[in-house]
């Protein structure tokens, strides 16, 4: 793809914006800013940004349409989506390695007994094929229709992420309800797009 220096600069900005929470966590760690319970703080923060970045990735397509910039989809959606996967993966690894210290018995029990962990695990497992099929090669091999089918899993994953978050909140559910509303709006946008589509056989411009 031909890219001007401006495109590259914007891409770098998007990449840095996605990476900044990770830099921030490292900075807090080095300066003692992760509270007296750094393990919990790291796990929570990684989970938070997993969800936030996933929501941002869901905004790319509507934003590209709204601002009539279809190239944004090709340029930024994969990067942002992969960063969301990275945060969710780190979130899970921190839970396994830092919180439980590879106590597989306790982890297995958690997954079976705690609905919020069960749901979180399902959401993570569903994210794996999206990350694996994100390369240009996989896109070509699968063809646009099948590739799109797989990536529509995100419409299940994002609500699962919200439910996972909702079920673990101790008392104040206001923030998670707000994020849930944002996800609901983004999915409603897709629903409206589909309903408007004139004929089922016709090819859509994007998801």
């Amino acid at each position, binding site marked *: 793809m031909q890219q001007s220096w401006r495109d590259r600069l914007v891409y770098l900005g998007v990449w840095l914006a996605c990476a900044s929470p990770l830099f921030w966590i490292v900075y807090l760690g080095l300066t003692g800013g992760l*509270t*007296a*319970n750094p*393990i*919990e703080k790291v796990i929570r923060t990684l989970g938070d940004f997993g969800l936030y970045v996933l929501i941002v990735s869901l905004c790319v397509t509507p934003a590209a349409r709204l601002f009539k910039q279809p190239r944004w989809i090709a340029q930024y959606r994969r990067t942002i989506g992969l960063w969301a996967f990275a945060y969710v993966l780190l979130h899970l690894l921190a839970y396994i390695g*830092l*919180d*439980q*210290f590879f*106590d597989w018995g*306790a982890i297995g*029990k*958690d997954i079976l*007994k*705690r*609905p*919020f962990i069960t749901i979180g695990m399902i959401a993570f497992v569903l994210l794996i094929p999206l990350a694996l099929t994100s390369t240009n090669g996989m896109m070509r091999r699968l063809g646009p229709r099948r590739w799109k089918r797989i990536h529509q899993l995100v419409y299940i994953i994002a609500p699962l992420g919200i439910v996972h978050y909702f*079920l*673990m909140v*101790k*008392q*104040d559910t*206001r923030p998670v309800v707000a994020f849930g509303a944002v996800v609901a709006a983004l999915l409603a946008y897709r629903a409206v797009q589909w309903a408007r589509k004139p004929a089922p056989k016709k090819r859509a411009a994007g998801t």
Partner: protein
Amino acid sequence: MLIRNAPDLTERDVTDKALYLRRREFITGAAALGLGTGLGFQSAFAAPLPGAKSRFSTNEKMTPKDDVTSYNNYYEFGLDKEDPAKNAGRLKTRPWTVAVEGACAKPQRIDIDALIKRYPLEERIYRMRCVEGWSMVIPWVGFPLASLLRSVEPTSAAKFVVFETLNDPAQMPGVRAPVLDWPYREGLRMDEAMHPLTIMAVGLYGETLPNQNGAPIRLVVPWKYGFKGAKSIVRIRLQETQPSTAWQKANAREYGFYSNVNPEVDHPRWSQASERRIGEFLRRKTLPFNGYGDQVASLYKGMDLRRNF
């Protein structure tokens, strides 16, 4: 074990009193100029408040004071652990009156400074287990609740004790949102309240209580989850019926009246079998009654602790 005995020398012994009082003035002056910010700020104002050693103290390694005073659940000052240390500075703890009332012959309204002088203060180094799965070891300074309750001469109708936290939206940003049914209320059965382990804490680490830890006076019940320890108490009421407490009202399925630390009874959403001691990497096993079973298990003889969680 790292520290078997508390060190014999304290900061007070090695620093000349006049010097440290001047240092305190300097800190106060600096704060007035807006130089002091961030964590540990309130504790700069703490006054020395020593307590006599107690046989009830654990000799486990104490959680560093910075952690005890910067990682708090005190929803009246915000929901994040760092919020109380940030927001509680504006709480005015003088003048302060504690009302002790209800089913008793001599109800009283006691000024906090009189109350602090009324009973010999003891240092109680207790384990503190939060319902969220973390724990600390905290050197509280306080006196047995039983001493205070005896002084009001409870009647035979006094079966339960209710503790009520200050509820002032002007000073407590957290109570402006209906996160819990304010004011925060906690309760104990009379025999739990009269137990020698149950104390009213007015200090920690040999100094007056920092606001974020519940100044000027709070409840500490070491064999129960931390949230039973109501902070910044304005009212203690004796009554015949079992009260419903703030967390019970918020979610009765998850938080019971007794809330004794119990590794066998999981919180519906997470295991209570283990805990992370603040400052440690590996989780440790949670002990029944937070390790105070020898002293308190008899209070619950014949009770189904799964049902009465």
